[in-house]
């Protein structure tokens, strides 16, 4: 199955000459025969082409990525299929040859580059050592080779930089060093496993640009593995969408984003916020099935809105519906057109009357003697969502922690409905503590693993005397229902829930106190986009139903557009621009805001 590309930007070459082909790959679990991690994978990477492999957690995308290097993680094994590179099957080669291929011909850039660099060897020496190992250059030319490699990824290459250790570089610099090292042996195939996750948007923009240029100039076939569709939209030539271990849809980038055909692709796109227009985000009901729990027939049928009986019978084939566009759906073509502006809603009205509930004045925040936030002044109205946006280190989370009473070392004033708030939660009145609730970034750390969900959600009611005993249990069930969790989870411990479900429990715990202000600290950044979509729509409905105000901390500008009324752009502890979302995002005045907007990956 050789799909001809329709993308004029890529040179049409016969598949395999320099590229790599995955044929009918199936990877199973050693401990559970018959259970597959990924199945029926056919994929062609052509030289000079970047293929985006996108999927949510548990879709098997990383497994496919590492399969290109002839590697599976412990507990998994190749059941059948081939990875053809230069007319030989990488999976069938003896390990000595595979080892030689890895790094030299097929390179890998990991998600966390800091762990790939040795912290006790200087950068220059590390690159030279790599070239020694690969037998590149001679003793005299290696240092120059290292400098050239660094220049290619846009890093300084003077002696001072070569003498640095990896901890003296920023996250983006480390990632670019990793890219430079991957490109040095002039590989023919490059596997990138979420290399920009965890980087700020401006850094991410630079790394992506460098990577794209390198791949195209060196004629490298690259597989870019990520969960982020917006990144894919900016870098990939072709896109493969994975779901539950299979490729659901495969096509040129323009096709996938303009005319997605698989219901899963459409649902994913529906859950992504846009930079240019507010949207009513929606999630995908249910959760991604784990290997062994995947349904028969079409693996997406139990979450699909277009499901018919035939979907439950046989596994659909990946069939070609247009040249270069393949879809694994028996109903492709009969479920109508898709439009990118579907779900668009009017932006928040910038002239709406405001009734201020929280106001911060001249807020300065310290860690010990070091001041990290300077003169921050803004306010939040009733039933209004104010977003705090900035890159890492901008102080956005620190501000939210002060409002939540979790950080005490600040000066200035925080006023909540006319009364001064104490510095720490212990110096605040019970009413203030009850009315301001904080939701944490990482749902895996925010719930006590030893308590049941019922105990967790019930606690605020008991503490603030809102309900107790059976009445409280009834209210817990009610709250869980509001956050779309069934009463079955009452007796569960948090470890049995997925990340999205845990975050819903955390939201239910916050709601149990009947708050007037929710402080949300990057509450969707640890979650898949489809889960983010459903959490955001949940918050929106709660805001409308209960009139709750929200202070929403995030680094994702597109998300701000869909959820917030007003936005504060932060840089290095100061507010650089503030105003209504429409004003700030459509006509930014500050250079910093413009740069943030320009670097944010967008699909619209």
């Amino acid at each position, binding site marked *: 199955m050789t799909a001809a590309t329709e993308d004029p930007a890529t040179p049409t070459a016969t598949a395999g000459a320099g590229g790599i082909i995955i044929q009918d790959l199936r990877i199973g679990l050693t401990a559970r025969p018959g259970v597959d991690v990924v199945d029926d994978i056919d994929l062609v990477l052509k030289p000079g082409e970047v293929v985006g492999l996108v999927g949510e957690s548990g879709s098997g995308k990383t497994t496919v990525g590492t399969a290109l290097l002839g590697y599976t993680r412990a507990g998994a094994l190749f059941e059948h299929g081939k990875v053809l590179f230069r007319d030989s099957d990488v999976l069938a080669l003896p390990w000595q040859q595979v080892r030689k291929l890895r790094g030299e011909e097929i390179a890998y850039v990991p998600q966390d580059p800091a762990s790939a660099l040795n912290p006790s060897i200087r950068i220059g020496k590390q690159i030279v050592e790599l070239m020694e190992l690969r037998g590149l250059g001679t003793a005299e030319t290696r240092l120059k080779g290292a400098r050239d490699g660094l220049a290619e990824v846009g890093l300084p290459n003077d002696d001072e930089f070569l003498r640095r250790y990896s901890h003296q570089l920023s996250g983006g610099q480390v990632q670019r060093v990793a890219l430079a090292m991957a490109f040095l042996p002039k590989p023919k195939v490059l596997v990138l496993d979420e290399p920009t996750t965890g980087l700020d948007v401006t850094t991410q923009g630079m790394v992506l640009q460098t990577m794209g240029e390198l791949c195209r100039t060196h004629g490298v076939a690259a597989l870019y593995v990520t969960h982020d569709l917006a990144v894919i939209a900016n870098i990939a030539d072709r896109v493969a969408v994975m779901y539950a271990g299979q490729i659901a849809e495969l096509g040129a980038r323009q096709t996938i984003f303009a005319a997605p055909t698989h219901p899963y692709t459409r649902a994913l796109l529906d859950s992504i916020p846009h930079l240019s227009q507010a949207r009513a985000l929606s999630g995908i009901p249910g959760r991604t099935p784990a290997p062994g729990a995947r349904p028969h027939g079409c693996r997406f049928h139990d979450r699909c809105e277009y499901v018919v009986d035939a979907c439950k019978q046989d596994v659909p084939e990946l069939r070609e519906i247009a040249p270069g566009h393949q879809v694994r759906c028996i109903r492709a073509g009969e479920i109508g057109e898709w439009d990118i502006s579907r779900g668009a809603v009017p932006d928040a009205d910038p002239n709406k009357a405001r009734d201020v509930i929280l106001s911060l004045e001249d807020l300065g925040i310290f860690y010990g003697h070091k001041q990290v936030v300077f003169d921050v002044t803004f306010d939040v109205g009733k039933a209004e969502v104010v977003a705090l946006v900035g890159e890492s280190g901008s102080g956005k989370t620190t501000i939210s922690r002060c409002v939540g009473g*979790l950080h005490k070392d600040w000066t200035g004033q925080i006023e909540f409905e006319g009364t001064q708030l104490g510095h720490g*939660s212990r110096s*605040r009145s*019970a009413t203030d*503590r009850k009315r301001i609730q904080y939701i944490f970034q*990482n749902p895996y750390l925010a719930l*006590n*693993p030893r*308590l049941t969900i019922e105990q967790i959600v019930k606690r605020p009611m008991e503490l603030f005397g809102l309900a107790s005993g059976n009445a409280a249990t009834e209210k817990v069930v009610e709250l869980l229902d509001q956050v779309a969790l069934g009463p079955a989870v009452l007796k569960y411990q948090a470890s049995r829930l997925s990340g999205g479900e845990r975050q819903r429990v955390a939201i239910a715990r916050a709601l149990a106190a009947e708050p007037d202000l929710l402080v949300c600290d990057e509450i969707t950044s640890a979650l898949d986009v489809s889960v983010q979509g459903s959490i955001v729509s949940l918050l929106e409905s709660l805001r409308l139903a209960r009139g709750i105000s929200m202070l929403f901390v995030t680094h994702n500008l597109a998300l701000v557009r869909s959820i917030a009324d007003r936005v504060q752009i932060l840089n290095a502890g100061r507010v650089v621009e503030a105003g209504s979302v429409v004003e700030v995002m459509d006509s930014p005045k500050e250079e910093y805001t413009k740069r943030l907007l320009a670097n944010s990956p967008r699909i619209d």
Partner: protein
Amino acid sequence: MSTTTEPSTLSKVTRQRRLMSGLVITLLVTLMALFGPLFAPYGENEVVGPPFAKQGFLGTDYLGQDVWSRLLYGGQIVLVIAVLGTLLGMVVGITIGVVAAYTGGWWDEVIMRLNDVALAFPQILLALVVLTAVAQPKAWMIILLVGISHAPRVARVARGVALGIVSRDFVYAAEALGEKRSRVILAEVLPNMNAPLLAEAGLRLTYSIGLVAALGFLGFSPDPNAANWGQMINENRLALSTQPWAVLAPVLIIGLFTIGTNLMADGIAQLADRGDR
């Protein structure tokens, strides 16, 4: 122990061979020490023949008392003192460690530096200093001294474990709700420390047995006439070459018990490592 209520935990425990063998050995020795006196052929201080004679199951001791009977009688006091001393040491140590970790900052520094001073004393030295000063040691004194000498060591471990937990978001969440400090420690922090603390308790029990036996050997026991495994080693060591069982029997039983408790501690630690959560 407290981990055997849930079926899933129970099956995990039974599959853990190290833990199971440790549990069985500990249980057998404990049962012997507790109910031994009921089955002893002779009384605790009954003279049954000449000293160091090969008469009966394990022969006689330096006063002509039956070694087997004294062995059955002599465990109770050692085990009771060791277990209570360990419990005391665990409670005091955990309190110190968790409070230090939870309050943090200056208090943490002060508490832990004082703790370091206490740690500098060899465990048995403190007990000896006090016991040589009193005419006749009482059982509660030995328990107290064993407990106090364990506390700083337990405190270090408890603080280390607690540090990893007090910085988790669910503890901050409880703080933000305004929970009392004591409740944050009892309901949020402590339940997440179970496994490593159980392992530590097993290890501490091992040391306690050794400590109590050593004190007995040196002559510090609540009742000099009563049988006591540690004391028996001292009493009968003169005849090690002619009547070795009078010394070897208490040595072996102490050794067996420490191996049992140690295996148990190891097993619990392994179980926790494999991620029982």
